């Protein structure tokens, strides 16, 4: 029986346990961070993290924030893990406040991903996610994969990555998420469904924006031409076209969050990848909040430095 690789150190003294690799995210280590707070809900992140770790050949670091160092036994008890559940995990205790320590650990280890649940011990009445998760996604530099404990049946069935859903709003700056998303999909051999949701609202002013065609003189030509241009234009984020991953483009109309959720349910998407601009206050991230709140599958937030003023509200 192999026990967990146990380490105990303060955040701020990172140990690189795997060599850096250019894939899937350049400059990041193949290290996945899973924060556990001892709740049953938080543990729902582990199956998803194990899937990602398997396809990305990455190590999983379970982290738990403590006021001061505790013993291994105490640590396992606090995170509600039995010894039989720790196979393949590195378990770290971080000293400090939970969200800050998690984000710092991920940053200092150049982690490729944080996987955590939207619910845990702390209450999150009226909030999209639990406070710790909210703070982590706003401060973490790496992508965050959020898992709703409510979708336990989906989590249980998620043994492979088949379909990845990538909603795009047509602005060139949003293309920053495409490369990482497609590389992630390629790791798991997944197909990518790009979803554009047409809605009414202001047109992004960013030059090069491609929303649905304003003029459809003849649908038999305009739509195929537009779809081809849309995929090609956003394929440039990879520096190559055609795209290396099987990719399909879909168009829906209506409220973006509602349509994304509807699409994900209808097509049994395994992961939804969303562009994330780092602001969770009331005036921002309407789509992200809507999707995270009701997602039938894990949601990966890929952070971009996009200027909010140039974009439609997503």
């Amino acid at each position, binding site marked *: 029986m192999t026990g967990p690789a146990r380490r105990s150190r303060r955040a701020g003294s990172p140990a690189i346990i795997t060599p850096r690799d250019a894939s899937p995210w350049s400059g990041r280590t193949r290290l996945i961070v899973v924060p556990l707070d001892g709740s049953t809900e938080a543990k729902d992140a582990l199956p998803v993290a194990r899937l990602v770790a398997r396809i990305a050949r990455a190590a999983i670091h379970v982290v738990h924030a403590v006021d001061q160092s505790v013993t291994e036994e105490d640590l396992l008890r606090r995170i509600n893990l039995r010894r039989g559940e720790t196979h393949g995990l590195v378990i770290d205790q971080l000293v400090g406040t939970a969200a800050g320590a998690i984000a710092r650990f991920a940053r200092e280890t150049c982690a490729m991903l944080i996987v955590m649940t939207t619910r845990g011990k702390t209450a999150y009445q009226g909030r999209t996610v639990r406070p710790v998760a909210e703070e982590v996604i706003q401060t973490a530099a790496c992508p965050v994969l959020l898992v709703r404990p409510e979708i336990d049946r989906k989590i249980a069935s998620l043994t492979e990555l088949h379909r990845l859903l990538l909603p795009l709003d047509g602005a060139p700056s949003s293309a920053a998420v495409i490369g990482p998303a497609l590389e992630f999909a390629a790791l798991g051999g997944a197909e990518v469904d790009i979803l554009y949701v047409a809605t009414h609202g202001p047109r992004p002013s960013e030059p090069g924006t491609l*929303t649905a065609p304003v003029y459809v*003189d003849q*649908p*038999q030509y305009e*739509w195929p031409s537009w779809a081809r241009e849309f995929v090609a234009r956003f394929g*440039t984020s990879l520096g190559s076209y055609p795209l290396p991953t099987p990719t399909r483009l879909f*168009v829906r109309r209506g409220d973006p969050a509602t349509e994304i959720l509807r699409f994900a349910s209808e097509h049994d998407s395994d992961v939804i990848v969303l562009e994330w601009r780092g602001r969770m206050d009331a005036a921002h991230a309407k789509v992200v909040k809507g999707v995270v709140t009701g997602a039938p599958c894990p949601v990966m937030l890929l952070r971009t430095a996009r200027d909010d003023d140039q974009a439609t509200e997503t």
Partner: protein
Amino acid sequence: MLGRPFKIIAFDWDGTAVVDRQEDATPVRERLDRVLERGDYVVVITGTNFPNVDRQLSSRIVGPHKQRLFVCANRGSEVYGFDADSRPVLIWKRVATPRENRLLTGIAEAVRQTVERRTGLPIRVIRNRLNRRKIDVIPVPEWANPAKSEIGALLTAVERRLAGGGLSAGLHEVFDLTVQVAREKGLPDVRVTTDVKHVEVGLTDKGDSIDWMMRHVAAAHGIAARDVLIGGDEFGPIAGFEGSDARMMVPVAHGAVFVSVGPEPNGVPSGVLHLGGGPTCFRSLLDEQVALRQRGHTDFRSPPDHPGSPSPGLWTPEVEAASAQAVRPDPLSSEPGWFLLEDHYQPAREREVESLFAIANGYVGTRGSVHEHAPLAEPATFVAGIYTQRSSGQDLVVAPDWAEFRIFVEDEEVRLDRGETREHRRLLDMRRGLFEHTWRFADAAGRVTRLWFRRLVSLADRHALVETVFLTPENYSARIAVESVLDGSVADAAFAHYVAEGPNQYPASSLGRSSETPRTGGPTLIEVGKVGEGHEPPGSATTIVQSERSIVAVQHAVGDAVLVFGARSAFRAPGSIDVDHRVVEGDRWVGERWEWDAEIGVTYRVDKLVSVYTSRDGANPSDLVEAHLPTLVARGADRLIEEHAAAWADRWKSASVEIGADDDIQRAIRFAAYHLIAVSNPVDERVSIGARGLSGAAYKGHVFWDTEIYMLPYFTHTHPPSARALLMYRYRTLPGARQKAQALGFRGALYPWESTDSGDEASPSWVVLPDGEMIRIVTGDLEHHISADVAYGVWQYWRATGDDSFFREAGAEILLETARFWASRVRLGDDNYYHIEKIIGPDEYHESVDDDAYTNAMACWNLKRGADTVQTLRERWPDRWRALADQIEIAVEEADGWHTVAEKMHTGLDPTTGLIEQFRGYFHLDDIDLSAYEPRTAPIDLILGRERVARSQIIKQPDVVLLMHLLWDSFAPEVRIANFRYYEPRCAHGSSLSPSIHALVAAGLRDQTLAERYLRQSAEIDLANNMGNAAGGVHLAAMGGLWQATIFGLAGMRRRNDGLAFDPCLLPSWRSLGFAAQWRNRVLQVLVSAEPPTVDVRLERGEPMSVFAGENGARRTMVEAGRTYRAERKDGLWRAWREVVR
């Protein structure tokens, strides 16, 4: 003085604009105020700080025009602009690093100590200057603040002082010492200058101000270097030192016009025009600029004939050579509206930009692609009428890419992804039909190469294509190779390539035979070509080497169609150099490779001349290429460019539209006219214009009603032969239209909704939308109004041109066969009215409707004109009538019945409201408020769903409103207004054909607000950079609509049986609208002015004709050639025409 206006006036302040900083600057400030007001830019360049100039000049200029004023202060280290409230804003500043500041001080102090040590004289260092230090070599009270006029005495005093201290070379020695110390201390790119009293060491100089101006004012606004005037007073040397203003002559300003108003006792450098006269002269120069621009607003303008002049904005060797003599009259060159400029590379927009910058001549079109291995690049060349067959139907063939050049430095290809792009510009010179591209590129080794490409497809010789590349290794010498390539890898269908076996000898057995299997592999067919002997023209040291053999590309398209491209290239270089030449090839490409040892700073040139023919031009197009290519070689690239530019100038004479004070619309209307000219071919009656012309692959080159209703009027009134050719295409495809009618159980001719070369229906039956929905496309089955649209085009062309031979031999047959179709298409209802059922009108949101208003009215019109045609033929050309009657088996009685049908056609008009119901039951549909869905980023049928839209009154594009335009005189004014007011808010503008017609009708109804909104919407369809819908090609119908909205709407030009009428309604911001129009072998110049409201008509040539002014043509006169007549509106009424002297 200079004879032409400039768009940017930049000048030194002290000594040029004012005598000194104490002078009252009111006179020059007032003039600059006017220059700014007219829309031009003013850039003040000064060595002093901003407050000094602000106090004297800029603080006293107030208004929105002040945003075009810039003050470049502190000797190149700062730039100030002004906000909308006229407040100064620091918009650029060179910030020295702490190390640079330390070095500057260190250099100045070291010089001071050295000079003091060697001379024993006190030397002072002034440190409190931004990014520079001043070393005062004569810090004595009597020379504390010398005037410029005292510079001679100052120099004497300085030299005497330094020489007395033992520095025999005086000021020069201090200057050289400063340069040396700066070098030793390791400050790169240091600027050392002197005004005699001081030697200054700094990080910037006036050249940085010019550099900033050229990049951030000129380039940003598409202003050519040659439209920039740079003034100073010290260009020439003083005391052996370069004049301070000579620093402004930086490379980026090549082509700008430099003038000096200073005394310049030692002359001026080459390229500077010495005017003298000081600030007084400078003010006169400003007066001239204001006067030139004011005159320009009221002149009829036709493009000058300067085909050889270099294009603005881009560096060329010609520009460099011409810079010294750039001062010459050229009244249009200062208008950026003639150019489309894309001055940086945006990957996402690549395909869109390629479409916008496409060049074409009606026979062949090439997208504005650049060959840099950009990820999204989609280079494509199309030949009109050459299609390929796919499972989804016929597509225009993508021909071999004839325009490709590949550049190699030390065998490393210059590619976008292998280094750093320093400059990237594409420019479309619409006046001359030229595509130009500048690319400065630093490779991984830091080697900077400047490339400048110029491309044309000749309007003078439609089979001639030319591309030239100028190449300059800026900072290195190396082995360079240029490959001039015919690339079949981008082309559709079978492809083969080879080299002619000898000079002008083609292996006939292997070219252009449709029955042969194209050679695409196997043993090479390439033989190494022989390089012709270089020769030096008399009086020139240039090496010119012309390849003797041609490379040839052959492509087989649908059926027996064959395309043949033949190319030869030439290499040019200064001096006598050795160049290697060989033919290179790949699987699907062939090229000529020129390779030589390139020297730093030397410009080399390679010309590629291409001949293209297809099997539509002759049984063996290779023979045609063989005969044609040597004629291109004989003429050479420069002459071909001149001929091409002259052909464009000729077309613009009858096509130019000049708008006073609306740069956006001016550019858009010129852009529209450019692309329309580019896709027309007056000598080919077998092709028409596809929806996206020859600029992109979208719509597959298929021809719709767009041509007759939206584009044809432009050609009818600017170039009738092109209009005639388009209509002859309909005549030649009449058999296909007859077959379609017959197949559907009707008589006569039903034109296909989509057609290609044959005239057969080319509409697809299904399309899968991106939301997965598969929808049936029924336009090919049900959209029948196209037959009436073609007939309308025929009739209007005949009426406007008086081309009786066309009407008699072709047009009449179209009118009769289309009228016959409608007579068979209608059904007599129980109400004793005729109905057209299960139809689609222009509003394609509602399919299979009954009694579409547009279709019924146009059918009615068609029937009447059919009957008129019978009568006209019988009266004027009875022989032709008898022949035609026999041929198509038509009798007078049949035409008589058309009148009956027309008179009893269901119209949908409610006489009580004046409203015309768009189709039966329309008024009972859901009335959805469209404003609740604005703004939106998708067409409304996507937002709401097709079914919901179909159940509503939302329409895709004008149907009844289009009728108001086409049959304006058939409707009472109150009917026009009632219907426009009803349908306009219900139109979702889901078609690019929609905004222009709304602008046109709104102008006719004198609704300036809506006219302006829709005109601008129409103008932005291709030119807005956040729409993304031009990637597949430009929207030619929208362009034709924009021209119609401008001429028929805002100028109010109406075509009458007895002449042309004008009832203008200019946009509020417009001062004038001038344009050319043709009418029955006459050419008119029309100028509509806003204040006072007048219409001037000048008949350039042709017989006298009637013109009218005002609604219903209230004022009439007869105009004669060579004379100008004016109608003026006073107190709301048009007064009688009177002749005016121009």
